[in-house]
């Protein structure tokens, strides 16, 4: 196993021959399965689970291929390959998802083996992006860069990826299973809205320990995860998680898909009984088989490239002077950057939410540009966020304005991160076979209406999340303002929830009243925001005003006669 971190890809795990051989064999297997389906040797019922295991869904207009971006990390070379796929096999677009993946909406079944072969050529695949298995593990978009981080969660995210990929016990769970991991005390991964949420911090012996949350989730039954284990030692991470998933696999309901997620089991048993079952399973396991020795962890760590964080001594001063000289740049720095652990560096968030645009959609040309900028400014490393944006994690402060100028020139410099325009939206009824209503047009109208950057900054932090159905891919329950599309006799209506949060102040948004017709929804939200601006105390964010005053103060505004 190589330990030359200087030559490994920065921020992600370097595949070895075993990984590459596995992917190659997997592509050959799927090519053969597609051939059998096209020849009529496999029925659709037989073929469907096989294609889903390779990330291929049949959506509203065509097949959709969801490509895994493990813990949101990819390299410039991989992004260029995605651009090629968008250009060659799709309609020039890709769409970043709320699980840090990317999906293509216009894929042909007959092209899919070739696409997977091209992906394998850059160490990518579509495994664990569908089906009732442990899905792509998600992670903090500022991992390994954030000033507030206690330890880099990507090493353990990769360990969990390797543990969970094609895990023979966990390929047919009662339902899908989602894990998120953070190494920061500030929750940027929605840890308590996951089947398992892990928050890592250094333990007394210098090795990581983990707070384990279980049974959280959104969807039809939103539940905040419960704290299951405090300071789980690193060496027991895999054994303990295996015990949790075994208990779920054994006791989780398979008779009713709406009650099949682990959150329902945890609620049904109660956290104490659930913990007892996990502890009993954990106690009878041969822990030596699962022990995560420091040497194993360090072996994985050694396959991650480390950025050479060397910046001029006056890098921060240069950034300060650049900000003073250019008000537009200064605004973008305020909204779209995050403090880096190295004083000469900063993390830049590339908004994939242009005013009036489609959240998360990137063109092939934009993907190529992001790849070029990653090479030029951030060690070839790219991060996809669960907010459907992109992060360049390690940008020298003295070069930040050059980066911004390039982004701005390509329509990727929108200064709206964390503001009204930074809307999470699922593909909705425009693309998704499950959706009841369209999410994207509501997002577009809202972001166009609040496009003025001064207005957005004045309104301040406001998370608007939109889902086109109760499956909640747009995380509406976790939005300060949540919007849920519902179907009423074939027509679209939108239900508003207020007060949700996926961060440290985690909360489930509460329904404010009856669903609104599509053409009244944006006006109602505008009145809601106007009401907040009137009622807020100085410096108070929307969520805080809502919590101080409650829903009643906003309800009249939402349902005011047109």
């Amino acid at each position: 196993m190589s330990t030359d971190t200087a030559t490994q890809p920065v921020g992600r795990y370097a595949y070895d021959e075993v990984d590459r051989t596995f992917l190659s064999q997997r592509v050959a297997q799927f090519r053969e399965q597609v051939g059998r389906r096209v020849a009529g040797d496999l029925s659709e019922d037989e073929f469907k689970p096989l294609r889903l295991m390779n990330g291929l869904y049949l959506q509203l207009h065509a097949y959709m291929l969801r490509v895994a971006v493990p813990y949101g990390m990819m390299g410039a070379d991989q992004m260029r390959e995605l651009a090629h796929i968008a250009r060659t096999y799709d309609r020039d677009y890709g769409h970043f998802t709320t699980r840090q993946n990317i999906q293509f909406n216009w894929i042909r079944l007959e092209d899919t083996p070739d696409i997977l072969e091209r992906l394998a050529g850059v160490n990518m695949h579509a495994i664990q992006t569908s089906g009732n298995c442990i899905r792509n593990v998600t992670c903090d978009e500022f991992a390994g860069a954030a000033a507030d981080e206690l330890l880099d969660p990507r090493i353990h995210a990769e360990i969990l990826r390797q543990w969970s990929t094609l895990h023979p016990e966990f390929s047919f769970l009662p339902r899908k299973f989602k894990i998120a991991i953070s190494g920061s005390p500030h929750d940027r991964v929605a840890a308590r809205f996951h089947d398992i949420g892990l928050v890592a911090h250094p333990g007394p012996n210098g090795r990581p320990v983990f707070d384990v949350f279980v049974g959280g989730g959104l969807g039809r039954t939103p539940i905040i995860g419960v704290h299951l284990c405090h300071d789980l030692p690193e060496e027991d991470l895999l054994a303990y998680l295996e015990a949790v998933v075994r208990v779920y696999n054994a006791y989780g309901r398979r008779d009713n898909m709406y009650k099949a997620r682990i959150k329902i089991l945890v609620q049904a048993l109660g956290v104490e009984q659930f913990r007892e079952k996990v502890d009993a399973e954990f106690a009878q396991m041969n822990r030596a088989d699962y022990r995560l020795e420091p040497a194993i962890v360090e072996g994985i760590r050694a396959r991650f490239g480390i950025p050479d964080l060397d910046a001029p001594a006056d890098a921060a001063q240069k950034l300060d002077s650049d900000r003073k000289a250019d008000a537009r740049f200064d605004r973008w720095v305020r909204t779209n950057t995050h403090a880096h652990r190295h004083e000469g560096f900063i993390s830049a968030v590339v908004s994939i939410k242009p005013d009036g645009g489609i959240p998360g959609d990137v063109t092939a040309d934009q993907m190529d540009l992001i790849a070029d900028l990653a090479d030029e400014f951030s060690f070839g490393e790219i991060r996809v966020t669960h907010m459907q944006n992109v992060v360049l994690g390690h940008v020298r402060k003295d070069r930040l304005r050059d980066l911004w100028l390039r982004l701005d020139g390509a329509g990727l410099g929108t200064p709206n991160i964390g503001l009204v325009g930074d809307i999470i939206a699922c593909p909705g009824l425009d693309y998704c076979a499950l959706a009841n209503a369209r999410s994207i047009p509501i997002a577009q109208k809202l972001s166009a209406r609040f496009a003025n950057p001064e207005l957005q900054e004045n309104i301040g932090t406001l998370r608007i999340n939109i889902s086109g159905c109760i499956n909640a891919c747009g995380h509406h329950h976790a939005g300060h303002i949540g919007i849920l599309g519902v179907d009423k006799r074939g027509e679209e209506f939108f239900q508003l929830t207020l007060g949700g949060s996926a961060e440290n102040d985690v909360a489930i948004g509460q329904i404010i009243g009856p669903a609104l017709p599509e053409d009244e929804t944006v006006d109602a939200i505008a009145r809601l925001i106007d009401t907040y601006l009137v009622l807020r105390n100085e410096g108070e964010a929307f969520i805080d005003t809502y919590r101080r005053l409650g829903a009643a103060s906003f309800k009249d505004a939402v349902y005011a006669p047109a």
Partner: protein
Amino acid sequence: MGARAWTAHPFTAVEAVTGPLPEGISSEVDVRNNRRDMTGASVITANRLLDGRIVWLAPQGWSEVISQARVFDNAAVEDAIKQAKVAADAGTVVGIYGVQLDPEATKITPLTVRERIRAFGPTVHPDFAPVETPHVH
């Protein structure tokens, strides 16, 4: 929905009572997509196996544009769907079901928003709308 002034229409016979079913759970067509009145007219739709594109049952095969679809009385559409499913055993299309039409529309137009989007393309990308061609598969 832009310039399309479609109106809501109450279903009188079959009401959808479930939410959407994630793929992989059931191979049956989501009941929401196969509901219709006792009276009225419907067309039959599916996705093409090889490329997943939406197709509509036309007098001589499957068409990519709804304007070429064969219109059935709702009283006859169930039998037509059964026949189409038998014919599709060759594996040309998947997910066959019927789509209720808007009785007030002047051209062949599905009643529900969902099926209008399937018929006329994503509303957020008019450039991706199906192109009217005389080609029938």
